[in-house]
């Protein structure tokens, strides 16, 4: 038997058709579109997943663990055993406040006793001497030694090697503790730190039943195990115990991670949209090329349902194969980035989860279903009579109706990818609107160009007349080109703007020292001291500690709330402040800022998050009491805070008069430039002040931000590739027609130069319209993203308006060069024969 025959096996017909179409090159663009789509979705997924895990881990440094259990009494062995059973690492911590002595000096210090291995996430930093260069360490103080922070060693006047008395025992000052990763959790009431070993605790005799100590259990391991343990432990905690996890970590960190999630989601969505466009384009082309074949098969007596099933199966098979290839590619892609990123992150990225594979397949098949099915369904309507009367084609439907299914699928995918309604809806709405507008504008523009084309050379007239004649195909091409370019412009210009705006939200001159416990009579001397030490423009806030006792006259306590955080907050003292003007970065979301009457009668402004937790509404009356005083004031506004700003934020702000009866202290924030001895001098001048150095914390937040931005930029790159593919598919979409037409013109005697000139005129118009549309689209979408979603100030960017049309022209020029050349070099005979 001949080789041709041997290859005819007994595969199911759809598979055979797939094989044949593939071999004939009919499906390559479609398959490529799908592969790139799935690859970008999965790599974004894989990568986002890994980066997310890595970022979570980074953020967990601020807990010193993945899960941190806190308790006012020692932990039951049950909790430890379970952690061990789940293969989680654990270390202990005990903290309490005690007097540390060295010679005659003594200082109240925050003692923290830890076991070896602390911290499980993040690193301690120590210096051999006061004001010496510090370095990371993997160790904790050896038994018999303690590490003191700068403040404590300054207050006690000790140097490493000196003896420190703690309770009944004496320990050696081993090193200066410069950074404790989980230190940043509370700004207030922090006594200077003494870090020691849990093993040395009994000798001090300080921990006895009834003594006020807090116990920590640091737990860390794989993400799954940590999460499972978190879930397991939560319901088993008793009174006085709670779990600290990222969800209730510092708001600065939380908001950074949320925004990162948004950015990654956005880039994934761009990839999805572009994939949709590419798939729609290439299926459209496929069906147009298969109209005849379909009619012939109907003529042979193939039933409609069967033929449709045949094509549908062919596409499903192709889809599954492309999804699989895409997933593999996506995995490889993200592995490459991860490799590249680990050099930056230092800590290795955790393994990605399996979820993105699922996501990739779902996205690929959904896109195929939504955007390939409508043209295939149109195929079903091709009448068999087409074999005899060629002009009969598929009945035309409006593009919008045909793609309703696709748009629905896309909307669903976007919302899923965004994981957030507002972002998903904005992007989908933006692109849907852009699509519609682009369509209308391009039809109008084509008409206009056709009018312009009444005069000029033959080629010019002919080329522009073509615009009108093929207006539908050309409009499709313009819309697709414009969409692709929109995304490319968004990615090149708006991305930079958005990321830059985000980066600069944390200003370079953000305060890096917080000083609390300033007495009213110390405010002026402190300002003077700061001025002498070169510190400019400190900001001071009055602070009053008070408990919220009643809402609308009804006493409130922990029992009134089920929300864990509300319960914890309500029993604590709040830091209240009072001020004349709204603090910077705050935004009134309900009610209005204090009016003169409010200043006269007293009023309070509440932060939105705490208002929701505690069930406080505008107009409620809140009662506070503390330090022997109490007030009752109405809520006249609700504020949103800017947590990214590293400014002190207050849940409750009252009018100044309202708090006059309360004992107030002040807090001050300012920025200190490289001055290692500053803290020492400050605490010597004002021994009662508590100085908190947040520069380490800021460094941490900034480092995280940098990584996130880098990750986001990389993920954007995939959307970029998808964008280029859309451009390619768009250009391909009219190539058949052009090729045949060029052949026809030449067969009729047109010179090559004339044909080329006609095509150039047409391409010029197409590229210009697409480019201008893309500039408008990118500007509009960028504006909405900045103002509505990411809340950054929007800046008009003229470069977009130059780059858009230029890119449009470059695209079609490239196409004219590639495709046009092919069309011109294609022997007319062959083209005409193919066309019959």
């Amino acid at each position: 038997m001949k080789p041709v025959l041997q290859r005819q096996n007994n595969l199911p017909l759809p598979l055979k058709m797939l094989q044949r179409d593939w071999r004939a090159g009919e499906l390559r663009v479609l398959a490529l579109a799908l592969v790139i789509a799935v690859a970008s979705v999965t790599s974004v997924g894989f990568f986002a997943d890994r980066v997310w895990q890595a970022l979570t881990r980074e953020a967990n440094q601020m807990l010193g663990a993945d899960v941190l259990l806190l308790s006012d009494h020692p932990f039951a062995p049950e909790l430890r055993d379970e952690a061990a059973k789940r293969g989680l690492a654990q270390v202990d911590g005990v903290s309490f406040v005690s007097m540390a002595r060295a010679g005659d000096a003594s200082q109240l210090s925050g003692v923290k006793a830890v076991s070896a291995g602390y911290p499980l996430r993040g690193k301690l930093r120590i210096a051999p001497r006061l004001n010496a260069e510090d370095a990371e360490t993997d160790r904790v103080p050896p038994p018999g030694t303690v590490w003191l922070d700068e403040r404590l060693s300054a207050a006690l006047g000790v140097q490493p090697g000196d003896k420190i008395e703690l309770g009944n025992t004496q320990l050696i000052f081993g090193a200066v503790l410069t950074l404790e990763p989980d230190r940043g959790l509370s700004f207030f009431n922090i006594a200077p730190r003494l870090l020691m070993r849990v093993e040395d605790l009994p000798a001090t005799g300080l921990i006895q039943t009834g003594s006020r100590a807090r116990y920590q259990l640091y737990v860390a391991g794989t993400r799954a195990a940590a999460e499972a343990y978190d879930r397991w432990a939560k319901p088993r905690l008793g009174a006085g115990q709670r779990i600290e996890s990222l969800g209730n970590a510092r708001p600065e960190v939380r908001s950074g991670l949320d925004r990162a999630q948004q950015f990654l989601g956005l880039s994934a969505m761009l990839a999805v949209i572009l994939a949709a466009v590419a798939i729609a384009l290439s299926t459209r082309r496929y069906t147009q090329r298969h109209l005849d074949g379909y009619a012939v098969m109907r003529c042979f007596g193939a039933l409609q349902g069967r033929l449709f099933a045949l094509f549908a199966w062919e596409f499903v098979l192709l889809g599954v194969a492309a999804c699989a290839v895409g997933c593999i590619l996506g995995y490889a892609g993200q592995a490459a980035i991860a490799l590249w990123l680990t050099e930056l992150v230092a800590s290795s990225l955790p393994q990605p989860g399996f979820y993105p594979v699922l996501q990739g397949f779902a996205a690929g098949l959904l896109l195929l279903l939504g955007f390939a099915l409508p043209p295939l369904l149109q195929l079903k309507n091709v009448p068999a009579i087409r074999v005899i009367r060629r002009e009969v084609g598929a009945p035309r439907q409006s593009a919008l109706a045909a793609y309703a299914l696709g748009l629905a699928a896309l909307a669903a995918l976007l919302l899923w990818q965004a994981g957030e309604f507002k972002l998903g809806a904005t992007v989908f709405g933006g692109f849907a609107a852009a699509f519609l507008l682009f369509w209308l504008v391009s039809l109008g523009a084509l008409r206009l160009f056709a009018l312009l084309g009444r005069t000029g050379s033959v080629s010019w007239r002919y080329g522009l007349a073509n615009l009108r004649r093929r207006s539908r195909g050309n409009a499709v091409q313009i819309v697709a080109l414009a969409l692709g370019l929109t995304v490319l412009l968004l990615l090149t210009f708006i991305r930079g703007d958005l990321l830059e705006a985000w980066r600069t939200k944390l200003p370079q001159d953000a305060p890096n020292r917080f000083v609390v416990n300033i007495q009213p009579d110390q405010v002026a001397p402190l300002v003077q001291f700061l001025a002498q030490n070169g510190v400019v423009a400190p900001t001071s806030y009055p602070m009053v500690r008070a408990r919220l006792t009643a809402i609308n006259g009804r006493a409130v306590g922990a029992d009134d709330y089920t929300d864990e955080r509300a319960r914890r907050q309500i029993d604590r003292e709040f830091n209240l402040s009072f001020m004349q003007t709204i603090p910077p970065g705050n935004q009134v979301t309900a009610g209005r800022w204090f009016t003169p009457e409010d200043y006269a009668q007293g009023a309070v402004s509440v932060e939105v998050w705490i208002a929701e937790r505690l069930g406080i509404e505008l107009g409620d009356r809140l009662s506070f009491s503390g330090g022997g005083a109490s007030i009752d004031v109405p809520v006249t506004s609700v504020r949103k805070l800017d947590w990214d700003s590293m400014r002190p934020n207050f849940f409750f702000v009252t009018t100044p008069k309202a708090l006059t009866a309360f004992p107030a202290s002040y807090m001050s924030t300012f920025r200190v430039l490289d001055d290692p001895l500053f803290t020492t001098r400050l605490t010597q001048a004002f021994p009662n002040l508590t100085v908190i150095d947040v520069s380490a914390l800021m460094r941490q937040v900034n480092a995280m931000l940098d990584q996130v931005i880098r990750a986001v930029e990389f993920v954007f790159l995939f959307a970029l590739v998808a964008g280029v593919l859309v451009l390619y598919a768009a250009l391909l979409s009219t190539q058949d027609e052009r090729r045949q037409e060029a052949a026809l013109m030449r067969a009729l005697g047109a010179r090559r130069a004339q044909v080329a000139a006609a095509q150039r005129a047409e391409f010029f118009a197409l590229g210009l319209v697409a480019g201008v549309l893309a500039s408008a689209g990118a500007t509009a979408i960028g504006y909405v993203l900045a103002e509505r979603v990411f809340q950054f100030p929007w800046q008009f960017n003229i470069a977009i308006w130059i780059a858009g049309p230029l890119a449009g022209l470059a695209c079609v020029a490239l196409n004219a060069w590639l495709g046009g050349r092919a069309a011109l070099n294609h022997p007319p005979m062959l083209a005409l024969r193919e066309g019959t």
Partner: protein
Amino acid sequence: MTKAIDKFMIKAAGLSKVVPSGAGQLVILHEIDLAVMAGEAVAIVGASGSGKSTLLGLLAGLDTPSVGSVHLNGADLFALDEDGRAALRARLLGFVFQSFQLLPALNALENVMLPLELAGTAGAAQLAESMLERVGLAERLGHYPKHLSGGEQQRVALARAFVMQPKLLLADEPTGNLDAATGAGVIDLMFALNAEAGTTLVLVTHDDAIARRCQRQIRLVGGRIVA
């Protein structure tokens, strides 16, 4: 079903096709009555635009008439729905077109196999190959339509039509796109295959010489049968 009806492969009665055109109506076919016996070869001739292709399309059930009926092998064609007509075509009909209508993505062998595959016939490849051998294209099995000459393409189309062993072959100007010599070769082949299989043949042509090779000629003028 009675024997009397069975001798007629095609029986068309009062067949008219009217299409709206501009303000009024355009009558393409006017009350055509036509009967073709099983095994007969009939030529439909007439000037361009006289309605030959339209009539052929109606006889095949590819289009629906404005009035009138067609019985194919005793079955009332337009009493069936689209899919019913398609199923009937699958059982009875073979087609040859002026523009060949081979699928460009399929090679010669696959083009011939396609109707067999769609019908789920076993051994499609062997049947198709022997059919292609019969039309003299044994060496061109793996070639794509765009690399075959017009005459070769039409031979493939003939092989594709006859491989289904149709009772009735409808051919719409099978030589219309071919030069005289090539056309004659294709026509010879078609008549030979027709004779071997005893197929009923309805052939649309401009060419009187070809028409005369059929037992009967039907002349259309402006949508009506004359003589």
